[in-house]
């Protein structure tokens, strides 16, 4: 039964459903009598009455915040529109879709059967597109007298726009545009059916006039979001308060007024490549014959895309705007928070009220506020065995667990965390680092940078070779021997603490494959399969750790 339903509903729409084909065949002769038999009536869908925007992060970014001048995420946009279709064939156009639209992802629901095809025109209206569309067709040349301001109109034909230069023919002969040094311009008859923005259209056939509410959903590029956390560590260093913003940005030239807004955390697969062809056009290039006296480089005005004020166009200058805003946290502490729900294996955050996502705008919505989270500040160093290092500052880590006992226990989406320290009622920025996606129950580790007051120095103390454990291998007997000897070295590490408080220190060793610590003067632990010394170093003291390691053989 189930299989049967399945087959029955599986239609092959490339060839229309049989009953439909028949009606169409019968209807065709009637159409030929009409004035425009095969041309579709042009219908424009209404502006969206309802909008929903779901922003996804850049799939390649595992941690860190967004960069306003390189928004590599995307968004799913759903627009509810009303359409009025006449009977017969019509071309239904959807204007005002995001300029970053990926046309192949567009889904249209709500129309009755009869959608023949979906189209996205990639050729946009631009001066060069106008010229290209007018090649071989009549055009008017305007030539203005600089002295009198009078302009002469001359009917002509564009013969070529190849290679950037424009050649036109008038009754006087063949000339090249703007090569004479006179103010010359072209005046076109029509706009050649070109749209200003990428427009999606649907060819649809309806047996009768109808009005429907349809939903158009599509993916669009040039969006992104990240979480911006602000951690304020209490003066005693035992707890912190954590607040976070969802920072999202729309780099498209189209805004989404009064939209339902969601963001999705978690990495989703994206298949790159297969870009749809798009010609955004350009200015008319009036290239001429070589000019002996001056340069014949084309001169034209280029209108660039808009960039956020102060954001560097090249390189990773790091957009500091979200950061600046997050420092204003106290001002908007009463903001409504996003609501989280499970979406398959992803996390969806819903902005409670409708909001406007304007074009080229970054926006912040409150994600969470938690206080008195117990933390541990741990200093540490990661050393290779037998390392001979001069003094290097130790690393400081802020550690807690994402669970209820630590006043957390909620998914923490990836982003950037700024750690502030309390000082006389004010807070000062201590460090900024990146955070990956953290599920409930995971350990949270925030990199706090290097601490110059805690220094680590490693050295080989003694090296001994036990003659009893050497082996000789004669290569040429009596002349050349190969000696293999077990070198036994004692490594020592000095850790000095110039701070006035006792600190926790983790010294982690990176031994060669197959190596094992055989002797040590401090208790040895293990973390992720690597040896670790967990030490407590008193205030203003230096501690020395000695250890010896060997290659282990089964």
């Amino acid at each position, binding site marked *: 039964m189930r*299989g049967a339903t*399945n*087959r029955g509903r599986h*239609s092959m*729409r490339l*060839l229309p459903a049989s009953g439909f084909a028949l009606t169409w065949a019968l209807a*065709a*002769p009637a159409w030929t009598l009409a004035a*425009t*038999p095969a*041309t579709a009536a042009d219908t424009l869908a209404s502006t969206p009455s309802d909008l929903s925007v*779901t922003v996804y992060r850049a*799939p390649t970014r595992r941690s860190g915040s967004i960069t306003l001048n390189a928004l590599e995420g995307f968004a799913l946009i759903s627009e509810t529109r009303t359409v009025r279709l006449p009977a017969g064939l019509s071309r239904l156009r959807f204007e005002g879709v995001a300029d970053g639209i990926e*046309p*192949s*992802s567009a889904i249209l629901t709500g129309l009755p059967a009869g959608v*023949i*095809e*979906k*189209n*996205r025109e*990639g*050729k946009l209206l631009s001066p060069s597109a106008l010229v290209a569309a007018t090649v071989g067709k009549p055009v008017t040349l305007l030539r203005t*007298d*600089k*002295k009198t301001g009078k302009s002469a109109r001359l009917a002509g034909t564009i*013969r*070529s726009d190849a*290679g*950037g230069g424009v*050649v036109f023919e008038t009754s006087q*002969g*063949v*000339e090249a545009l703007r090569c*004479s040094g006179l103010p010359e311009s072209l005046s076109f008859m029509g706009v050649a059916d070109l749209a200003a923005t990428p427009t999606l259209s649907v060819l649809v056939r309806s047996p009768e006039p109808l009005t429907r509410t349809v939903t158009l959903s599509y*993916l669009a590029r040039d969006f992104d979001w990240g979480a911006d956390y602000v951690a304020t560590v209490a003066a005693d260093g035992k707890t912190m308060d954590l607040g976070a913003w969802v920072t999202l940005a729309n780099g498209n030239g189209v805004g989404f007024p009064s939209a339902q807004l969601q963001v999705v*955390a*978690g*990495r*989703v697969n994206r*298949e790159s490549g*297969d870009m749809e*062809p*798009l010609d955004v056009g350009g200015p008319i290039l009036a*290239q001429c*014959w*070589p*000019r002996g*006296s001056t340069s014949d480089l084309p001169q034209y005005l280029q209108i660039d895309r808009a960039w956020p004020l102060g954001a560097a166009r090249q390189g990773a200058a790091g957009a500091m705007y979200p950061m600046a805003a997050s420092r204003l946290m106290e001002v908007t502490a009463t903001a409504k928070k996003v609501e989280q729900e499970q*979406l*398959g*294996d992803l996390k*969806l955050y819903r902005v409670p009220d409708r909001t406007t996502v304007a074009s080229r705008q970054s926006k912040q919505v409150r994600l969470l506020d938690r206080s008195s989270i117990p933390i541990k500040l741990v200093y540490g160093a990661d050393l290779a065995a037998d390392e001979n290092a001069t003094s290097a500052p130790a690393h400081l880590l802020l550690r807690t667990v994402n669970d209820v006992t630590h006043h957390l226990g909620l998914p923490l989406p990836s982003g950037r965390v700024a750690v502030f320290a309390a000082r006389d009622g004010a807070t000062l920025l201590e460090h900024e680092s990146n955070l*990956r*996606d953290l599920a*409930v129950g995971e350990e949270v580790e925030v990199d706090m940078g290097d601490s110059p007051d805690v220094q680590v120095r490693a050295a080989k103390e003694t090296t001994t070779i036990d003659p009893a454990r050497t082996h000789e291998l004669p290569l040429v007997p009596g002349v050349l021997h190969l000696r293999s000897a077990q070198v036994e070295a004692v490594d020592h590490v000095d850790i000095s603490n110039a701070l006035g408080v006792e600190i926790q220190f983790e010294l982690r060793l990176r031994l060669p494959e197959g190596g094992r610590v055989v002797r040590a003067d401090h208790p040895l632990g293990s973390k*992720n*399969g690597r040896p670790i010394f967990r030490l407590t170093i008193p205030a203003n003291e230096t501690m020395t750790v000695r250890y010896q390691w060997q290659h282990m*053989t*089964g």
Partner: protein
Amino acid sequence: MRVYLLVMAFGFCWLAGPALAADRTLSVTIYADDLALVQDRRDIELKGGRQRIEFQDVSAQIRPETASLTAADISIVEQNFDFDLLTPAKLMEKAVGHEVTIVRVNPATGAETREEALVLATNGGVVLKIGQRIEVLRDDGLPVRVIFDKVPENLRARPTLSVTVIGGRAGTRPATLSYLTPGLGWRADYVALYNEADSKIDVQGWVTLTNSSGVTYDNAQTLLVAGSPTQVDGGGRQPNYYRGQQPRPTLQQAGTESGSRERLGDYYLYPLAERTTIANLQTKQVSFLDVHGVPAEHGYEFRNRWLGTAETPQSAKSVYSFSTSAHAGLGDQLPAGVLRFYLRDKRGDPQFIGESRIDHTPMGSTLSLATGDAFDVKVRAVVDKRTRLSTFNWQSDMRYELSNALPRPVTVKLLQEGLWGDSRITAESQKSTRRSAETAEWAVTVPANGKASLTATFDTRY
């Protein structure tokens, strides 16, 4: 039968329609890999005897060597493809040795002075001979119009194909020009809506056609071919395989069922039901598949590429698998493309949850597609101990820590890859299956909001 009816109806419509060129029938066959065969049938007027026929509206990316013109009672003398384009600079270059008219415009009065000039050279500047004087054009920067009598032969706005023929008898008769061109391509785009409540998917398939060939194909009969014919020169992408970069396999089980779709050799054909206009730089989509309620399975998969340690837990992949079989599957072969997954949120609105590429897939296959990383299901692989047993024999004690922050138990398919040489599992906390010499597989169940651990000892000889 009904299909024929339809085509006839269209043909009638097309002949009667005044808006259409009455003497031209285009048919376009598009292959999946950026290649198309264009057949352009039109009436040509033959004078009898030697004659040159120009085709201006052919693809700008035409492979001219593949062009062929067939008509009754003609013989081809030669075929030319002229790509010398008409630009102002070329116009001047071709005027060397010829007379042009120059019009000087007095900037103060606007008065025009007309003179005949001979173009002597155009190297780095135009040198003119006016009467007995030699001048450089616009050397003083003042406005000078240059008027040419005509556009020289061979210079055109667009590359042009021309064929010289000897026609047997005069008169108008149909001729077919066919050629191959890149710039036209298609792929499939799928939309899958997964229903979590009953583990079923609805799948819609669209063919997506793109045209960047430079011209518009008006009212063309379109046929799509699923498959990529071997191209000798130029086109065709070489698969880029090298170890470590291989994508995750999506085809679990290759199907052995045959569909009802039309075939050509080993390719499947997807004819478009109606004539369509493929505009330049247009993306066009036509539906070809619409199936509801196909059983699908959702699971988790984690691949550890080699016997190594991960410092932070890594997310398992969220994987959806389903069949393309006629029985309890999509019931169709799938042309290569991208499948996008959607899932309804708490309000019932579909939300995007990731996409995956599929290759040409025969009917009856089992597909397993990863949509992305699971936020709540993570795995950390740790080498607890690595011991050298002898020079070429190592032992690795692996531990895999799995965590699940979801309120329900999950099963993770854990794959340990990179087992090269003679690798044996000497001890393990749960029985593994060896998928291949290089891969071991476990199915580990992780309790709701809990953790699970798996250990295995590998003995590697090489």
